[in-house]
């Protein structure tokens, strides 16, 4: 049969970020997809050689506007490991709380974008309205809605009072109760089930083979979650990874919907279990220049991110590299796109929650 190549991107209505997929079609079936990335490469690895390591944290959190807190946290934690800095306990708890709030707002943002991609604009607005309340909490506690600048090597720059933490939990639980109706729509609405159910199935074996990470892997039944390693105080909380076994687009939506509820529960547990006391230190003074190398893993909303840092004893780092979750999920996306209908391609791409800004740095 005659083959046609349809270039999708770098500008495309369904994707706000630039990635090119050359879709090779036989009639309406996609038989191959060739990705091209690199349209928004910003040269972070060169920049690190010219920006002091204390200031580079503000650059790192600008890798992405959604995982900005997690990027800043990952860099700070990795540098603390290199410099053997002991972080105050309260700072680690606060980081965990902000990280889980980042997960809530990221998933709400994605659910909205996903709903918009499959033509459910009303639902898109509901998700983003709920997300706004999380951003308000961020603004109240960090001073910013998207870029927070609260992470610093050695701790955090702002404290949250005990009474405010309790108020945040109450607010998030109200948000969770309100979101339950939206969650029910995502899980039960017949038009959503019809549009996403059985589309883009990634089996458990395939997910292993292509090294899928994050909600992508968990929707295929693989309990892959860096939080389970117990780092960053997650060992002090009780939780099970959210798993689905169907591996289709609907399963990936449902995993993210349920992870919002899970994150609210984790924040509640953290506030209950963290030691009380507003005057407790939140920062350790860091002196000297770093020497050595390390790598650090974090569970971002989209999946596992890895940072590699090499320092040479000067105030400029020798090497900084981030392997972001979208980069790990691109092979899975290509695998799913092959064999699907052209009309399903936008949904499949959206359900990996692509962040091309993260990927290309």
């Amino acid at each position, binding site marked *: 049969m005659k083959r046609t190549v349809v270039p999708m991107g770098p500008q495309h209505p369904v994707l706000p970020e630039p990635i090119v997929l050359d879709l090779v079609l036989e009639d309406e079936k996609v038989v191959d997809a060739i990705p091209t990335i690199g349209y928004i490469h910003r040269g972070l690895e060169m920049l690190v050689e010219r920006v002091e390591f204390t200031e580079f944290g503000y650059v790192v959190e600008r890798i992405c506007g959604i995982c900005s807190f997690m990027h800043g946290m990952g860099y700070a934690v990795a540098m603390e490991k290199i410099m053997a800095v002991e972080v105050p306990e309260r700072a680690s708890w606060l980081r965990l709380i902000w990280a889980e709030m980042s997960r809530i707002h990221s998933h709400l943002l994605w659910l909205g974008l996903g709903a918009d991609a499959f033509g459910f604009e009303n639902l898109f607005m509901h998700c983003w*309205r709920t997300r706004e309340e999380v951003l308000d909490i961020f603004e109240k506690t960090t001073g910013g809605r998207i870029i927070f600048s609260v992470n610093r090597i050695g701790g955090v720059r702002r404290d949250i009072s005990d009474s405010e933490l309790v108020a945040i939990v109450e607010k998030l639980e109200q948000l969770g109760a309100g979101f339950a109706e939206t969650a029910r729509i995502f899980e039960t609405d017949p038009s959503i089930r*019809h549009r996403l159910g059985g589309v883009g199935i990634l089996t458990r074996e395939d997910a292993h083979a292509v090294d899928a990470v994050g909600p992508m892997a968990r929707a295929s039944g693989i309990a892959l979650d860096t939080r389970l390693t117990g780092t960053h105080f997650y060992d002090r909380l009780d939780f099970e990874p959210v798993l689905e076994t169907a591996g289709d687009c609907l399963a990936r939506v449902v995993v993210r919907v349920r992870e919002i509820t899970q994150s609210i529960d984790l924040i509640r547990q953290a506030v209950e279990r963290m030691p009380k006391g507003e005057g407790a230190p939140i920062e350790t003074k860091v002196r000297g220049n770093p020497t050595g190398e390390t790598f650090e893993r974090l569970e971002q909303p989209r999946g596992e991110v890895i940072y590699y840092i090499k320092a040479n004893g000067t105030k400029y780092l020798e090497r900084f590299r981030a392997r972001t979750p979208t980069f790990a999920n691109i092979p899975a996306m290509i695998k799913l796109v092959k064999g699907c209908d052209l009309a399903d391609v936008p949904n499949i791409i959206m359900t990996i929650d692509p962040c091309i800004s993260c990927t290309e740095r």
Partner: protein
Amino acid sequence: MTNPFNLPMVGRSLRNLVSRPATRRYPSEVRPHFPGTRGTIEFDLDTCVFCGLCARRCPTVALTVSREDRSFAIEQLRCIACGVCIDVCNKDSLHMSVEAPRVHLRTGAAPGDPRPGHEEWHQVQPAAGSPPGQGDSAGGTAAAAV
């Protein structure tokens, strides 16, 4: 098999018809800021000793402080409002202001008119008594001197 009569969105949509809008009617209704919200950097000439610590620590090199001229300049378009300069200032000469220019109301401009608020960022605003030529060239620099 999905039930085609299960329409969970319908109830929500009907409620939205009679509920208050979720958005604000800007500019008549302005969103209040929280006490800790970061905004633009403001500078107090009276207390500053021109030590230059803020300029040295600024991650984006947006600040210029001169002890000889006793002048301070901030390039607003470079500033990322991280607040490092405020943290390091020993004299509390720097603080954040969240007073954003309300472009339509303040100037009486219609929504379709060019927005003067943005141009102000590019204007050099030397304070009275500043040396001649201070801040003439660099666009986006608000300068002050005593």
